[in-house]
């Protein structure tokens, strides 16, 4: 059942993928600082979208509280760095462990007691929300006044401490996004990936076949949470400041899921396509409204909402399957 990734890709796919990778690798030499920061955020959303997609698109478990894992990852690595001088290269593992543990607790509570679907999604929101409140009163990491990492304007890059230029951060997130894509794709082809898809399609039938549904749903949550936490570590060291409302807020969780839904749930390239679309639209909109001199709090969210509605109404499978067919790429998509 485990198929070779390379044999599945046609030459056309390979040429397209190579071109895209080369373009993204070359970007820092070609585009300006501003555009680079836009692509960087797009890649960040492609990365966390991929992590969320593993849980929802492949294993069929809807989480609306993924900001929880971003936040836990961010705060864990940042606190270890500020308070104990632990470099993020090591703090990263603690961050993944903390997020995985949180995911395991949520998963255990939900799956042990048969909470699924919308109720499971509500549980994930609840956990993200009360963690936000908890961190708002957590003085050790700054509570509501925020937690700050020492800012250094460096021209050299230090990967172990994640201190360096924006170009370094760009390559870090590019590597993460590409790595996540390959990782999720490979994982989906393993026995585990097939279990997940079976559970997504029909949990009762999966159980009747002897699949340990509880264990594999737990694994999906834990792996997705740990992956998402890595995105949080990146965010903490890139922005150097963390505020509970900003990190754990429900709007953060929603932002994470927009890209994979627009791009195509359960497709591997969907989160990337979705992230580029909303990234470009979002930035364009901000610039346009600023140029027009309009105060625009919330307009981005409004536009995301409209796009989501349109996608769900017109192309429920997402944009990527559509684009891929048009351009003649082979695609393993989620068939309805």
């Amino acid at each position, binding site marked *: 059942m485990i198929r070779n990734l390379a044999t599945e890709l046609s030459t056309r796919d390979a040429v397209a993928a190579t071109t895209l990778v080369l373009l993204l690798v070359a970007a820092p030499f070609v585009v300006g600082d501003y555009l680079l920061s836009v692509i960087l955020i797009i890649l960040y959303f492609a990365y966390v979208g991929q992590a969320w997609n593993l849980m929802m698109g492949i294993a069929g478990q809807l989480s609306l509280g993924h900001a929880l894992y971003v936040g836990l990852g961010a705060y864990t690595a940042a606190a270890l760095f500020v308070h104990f001088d632990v470099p993020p290269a090591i703090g990263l593992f603690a961050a993944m462990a903390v997020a995985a543990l949180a995911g395991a607790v949520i998963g255990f509570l939900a799956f042990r007691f048969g909470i699924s679907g919308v109720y499971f999604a509500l549980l994930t929101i609840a956990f993200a929300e009360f963690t936000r409140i908890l961190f708002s009163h957590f003085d050790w990491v700054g509570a509501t006044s925020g937690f700050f990492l020492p800012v250094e304007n460096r021209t050299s890059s230090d990967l172990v401490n994640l201190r360096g230029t924006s170009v370094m951060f760009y390559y870090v997130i590019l590597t993460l996004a590409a790595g996540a894509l390959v990782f999720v794709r490979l994982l989906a082809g393993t*026995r585990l990936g097939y279990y997940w*898809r079976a559970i997504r*399609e029909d949990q*009762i039938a999966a159980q009747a076949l*002897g699949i*340990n549904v509880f264990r594999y749903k737990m694994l999906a949550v834990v792996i997705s949470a740990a992956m998402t936490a890595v995105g949080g570590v990146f965010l903490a060291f890139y922005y150097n400041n963390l505020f509970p409302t900003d990190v754990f807020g429900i709007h953060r969780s929603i932002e994470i899921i927009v890209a994979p839904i627009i791009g195509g749930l359960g497709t591997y390239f969907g989160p990337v396509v979705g992230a580029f679309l909303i990234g470009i639209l979002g930035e364009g909109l901000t610039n346009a409204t600023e140029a027009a001199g309009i105060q625009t709090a919330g307009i981005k969210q409004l536009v995301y909402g409209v796009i989501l509605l349109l996608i769900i109404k017109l192309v429920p499978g997402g944009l990527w399957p559509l684009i891929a067919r048009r351009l003649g790429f082979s695609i393993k998509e989620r*068939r309805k």
Partner: protein
Amino acid sequence: MLKVANLSLAYGDAQALDDVSFEVAEGEIVALVGANGAGKSSLIRAIAGMERPAAGTITYRGTEITGWPSHKVCEIGIGQVAEGRQVFPSLTVLENLELGAMLRRARAGEARNLDRVYTLFPRLAERRGQAAGTLSGGEQQMLAIGRCLMGEPELIMFDEPSLGLAPTIVQEVLKTIRQLNADGLSVVLVEQNVALSLKIAGHGYVLENGRMAMTGSGADLLNDDRVRQAYLGL
């Protein structure tokens, strides 16, 4: 082979099974019949480890399996074809079958079992690359049975295999069940189609409101006046 003794099961306040006992001998077809809501599916689900009984014991080949989780029950050799042909619609026919073979007991024999399923259901071989959701109702039922066979069960519990199928397809499914039984599989057959299932069963049990109301050989039950009146409308 399978022995259920004094089994009780409740969903909250609703008593689904009350002191139910029945037995399946090696190589036998046992029919469990009864009206909607009589507790047939609950009984299957309790044996399969998908519901936890409140009281009673389930013993399979001398091992007590009461309260075992479903994956362990499958691993010991009890297969289940669930109600409503629950295939994985977006996975291909072959992927569906492969998923049936993921039990530890069945991994080594996967190729042999796949051959066997394809011989039994040539339609599935023809459509192996097709998404299961695009199959007809009868083909999906064949796939559900084939997928169960991939797990090398020794006992299969069929839950309403005729539900929603055309009469000719129902005949075909029952013929398949008889053939599997002739090849050595033991069968528990839960059916609303009382006449057909009692005809092919060695033993029959009639469930009424969660209790065992009657038991006897398939032929005896078919000739029983109460059964004829209540279930056959004669």
